[in-house]
């Protein structure tokens, strides 16, 4: 699998290009990944989504569905797609340092 380099460190990535080890994740790294994904600035709303996804993953072992995310994180569908224009499933989970969500919804 691939790797990414940030400030002198080489981090392992999984087959989808997401962080392979969740322990490598921190907020600065999230900003770095976001910039690479074309999101130059993470706003409080981005963080609401990222932190909510991380909380659910911690508890349940998979990222929440988009439907649940929009119901429980306080960010509605339209806003979610504005925050992560190239697809919330892939982008948000990648920035959050999580594997690609397994669910279809």
């Amino acid at each position, binding site marked *: 699998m691939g790797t990414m380099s940030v400030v002198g460190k080489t981090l392992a990535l999984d087959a989808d290009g997401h962080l392979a080890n969740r322990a490598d994740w921190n907020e600065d790294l999230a900003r770095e990944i976001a910039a690479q994904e074309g999101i130059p600035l993470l706003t409080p709303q981005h963080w609401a989504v990222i932190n909510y996804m991380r909380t659910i993953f911690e508890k349940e072992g998979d990222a929440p569905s988009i439907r649940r995310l929009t119901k429980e994180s306080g960010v509605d*569908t339209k806003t979610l*797609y504005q925050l992560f224009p190239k697809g919330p499933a892939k982008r948000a989970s990648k920035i959050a340092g999580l594997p690609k969500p397994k669910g279809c*919804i």
Partner: protein
Amino acid sequence: MAQATADLPIGKVSGVTETAPQPIQRVSIVVSHGSLEGVYPGLIMANGARMEGIEVSLFFTFFGMDAIISKRMDHLKVATVGNPGMHMPTLLGALPGMSAFATSMMKKEMEKIDIPPVGEFLTMIHDAGGEVYACRASVDMFHLKREDFCAEVDGIISVGQFYEKAAGGQIIFT
């Protein structure tokens, strides 16, 4: 011609350089059936496309239009007759209440895996940037008006307009 390609490995075409497959950019999904199991696959694929950042338009035609008719969208039923996938004898499937029973069972299972009711699902897809269209010919055939449809419908369009909107993308017929 057969002579020239005979020594190429199976599946390889002479003169074509291999490139990595390009990600899908745009899909247009046609929904033509009005049963619950006829409508959901198209909606799930449309929503899944948006989740991946793929542009999507949904085109509802014939009985598939029931999914965007306000009065009907949340009352679609599973077909228990003429549906071999139900593994149920036709006469049993035809008993009163059987379709309603199968429908409520399926809706319960769908709710468990977070699949929303049709109306909510369409709002979700539309809010996600998906476009929703009704088929002009079907609308005329069934004598329907714009006000019969839910707010998410972006327009009533002809087949020609559908193809224009589908330009450069993939078309999926369900």
